[in-house]
């Protein structure tokens, strides 16, 4: 039982990492970014590449993987999304999906389609009254909670964060104050992408790594955003952990239905509270 809860919290933490970026781009730009799944995957493959060079130092590799994603996401934002921004949602969806297709195929080209195994970077276990819990999973949850605090600080106290929060409420109002909103959106976009990559990297030792891993995760984190409310950062945090627990408890009784259950929760949420963009 406790293991199930720990597992659910771990999944929730990972979903939180990935959903922040989606929630922010949804809330500010009203664009769904399929390329989010790409940066998530790229981060993991970077770690796989750099891990042997760094003699297995997972944390440095994770930093490099996260850093590599930033320029990639800048290019995507600058040359794809900003050019379609405000024109048509549909074209933006199709264009970012095209980027995802290109990127995933490039990954298949460079690294091959075979899944990579990856071992637990800490490898220690905490035993609590007959239960053994991997320290790594607890660490992921702790990092997520810390991140939540840091992001809250960032969006409440820093000027960039304040501008973004204001733009979530009323974009045109912020623009009328003479602030170049697009520039800040770009920053937020890169931040979200980097966090998605970090989430992917932290998730990599628990799951299997293959080029198409981003697709499912994207759908799951999209459900998180819907359930939590678009552009609602606290809502995203709560719904990520709630859906993580939903997944783990479903998996306990019926392992294959875990993802489906999340979509069912999302559908119920949509019936209760329809969304208009």
């Amino acid at each position, binding site marked *: 039982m406790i293991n199930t809860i720990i597992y659910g919290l771990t999944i929730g933490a990972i979903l939180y990492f990935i959903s922040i970026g989606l929630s922010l781009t949804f809330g500010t730009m009203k*664009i769904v970014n399929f390329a989010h799944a790409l940066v998530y995957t790229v981060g993991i493959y970077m770690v796989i590449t750099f891990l042997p060079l760094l003699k297995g130092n997972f944390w440095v590799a994770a930093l490099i993987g996260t850093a590599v994603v930033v320029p990639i996401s800048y290019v995507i934002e600058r040359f794809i999304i900003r050019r379609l921004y405000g024109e048509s949602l549909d074209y933006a969806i199709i264009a970012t999906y095209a980027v995802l297709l290109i990127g995933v195929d490039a990954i298949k080209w460079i690294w091959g389609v075979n899944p990579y195994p990856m071992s637990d970077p800490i490898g220690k276990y905490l035993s609590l009254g007959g239960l053994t819990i991997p320290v790594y999973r607890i660490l992921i949850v702790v990092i997520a909670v810390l991140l939540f605090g840091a992001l809250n600080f960032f969006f409440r106290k820093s000027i960039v964060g304040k501008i973004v929060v204001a733009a979530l409420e009323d974009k045109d109002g912020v623009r009328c104050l003479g602030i170049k909103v697009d520039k800040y959106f770009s920053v937020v976009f890169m931040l979200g992408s980097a966090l998605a990559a970090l989430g992917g990297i932290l998730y990599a030792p628990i799951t299997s790594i293959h080029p198409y891993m981003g697709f499912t995760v994207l759908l799951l984190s999209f459900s998180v955003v819907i359930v939590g409310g678009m552009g609602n950062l606290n809502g995203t945090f709560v719904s990520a952990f709630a859906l993580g627990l939903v997944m783990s408890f479903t998996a306990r009784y019926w392992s294959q239905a875990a993802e*489906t259950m999340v979509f069912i929760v*999302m559908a119920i949420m949509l019936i209760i509270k329809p969304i208009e963009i």
Partner: protein
Amino acid sequence: MKKEAEKTPGPMTDFLEFKRHLPKERILLELVIVAGGFVLLAPILKVQRVTDFMIFCIFVLSFDLLYGYMGRLSFGHMLFLGAGAYGGGLCIRYITKDPLLAILAGIVLAGLLAMLIGPIIVRTTGACFALINLAFNQVGFFLVLSVLRKITKGEDGLGVVPAGLGGLNLGSRPIMFGFVLFFLLLTFYVLRRVTTSPYGYLIRSIKEDETRVKFLGYNTFLYKWLTYVLAGCLAGLAGTLNALNYGYVNPNFMDTHRNVDVVFAVLIGGAGNLYGSIIGGVVYMVISNYLAIYIPRWEIVLGMALLILVFRFRQGIWGYVRKKGARRSIPAEIGVERG
């Protein structure tokens, strides 16, 4: 006075009334052109291939109704193709081997599915609409792959061998060709009539500005739902035909990764036009059947082509042809006036 009052458009009355904007002769001519095009194509490529093309065209037409006409981009339309394929396949395996009843079963299953999930889905627009469709598609894929494994035989799929159609053997390629062509023309005819009816104009207005349509007193939810169900039924028809044509059905018919095919086909042909859909369907199938063999990195090329379509060539092939045609005809008209 009273007569005029009766004529004012009401939400439900003029939807059912299909006005004859199109003369019968025009529709007949168009049907002959479409049929002639495919019949001419058959000996050049292979009959079997062209049958495949036509089924894909039905699918593209159904998607175009949703995306091109109503402006709702779905990334999960394969769900209905798969539902139709499984509806037909299961009907043939467990109930009857009659191909027409199988097609009916496929359409009914896809339609019921669309009716069921439609009220949830059509509330959303834009990105939500695309992704919720994708999520449901994923659920459907999971259902046929593992939950309903006992009925659908999971990954192995079902063999679908229909009985003859009144003495005609559907196993023979030319007969299958004619059979599919009939359904393509039927789909084209239905959509041509539907899209030129007041209902068709209404869903196009929903694409332009749904709020204003609501202000006019129309229940947009109902019309969106109806369109969704119609598109689902037609995709189901394409799915059943696919199952009959290939002789089997497996979860690949519902594969979420293949949704991009139909989006690409609609874009390359030109969204919001029935000819565009047919041209797009044929062009996409030609590219994926012939070029994909020579191109090792097919997805990269497909992605690049999509980007080019989105940034540079939005009107598609049919839009381009029409623009060229319009340019040529306008100076001619001016010339006539001057003369």
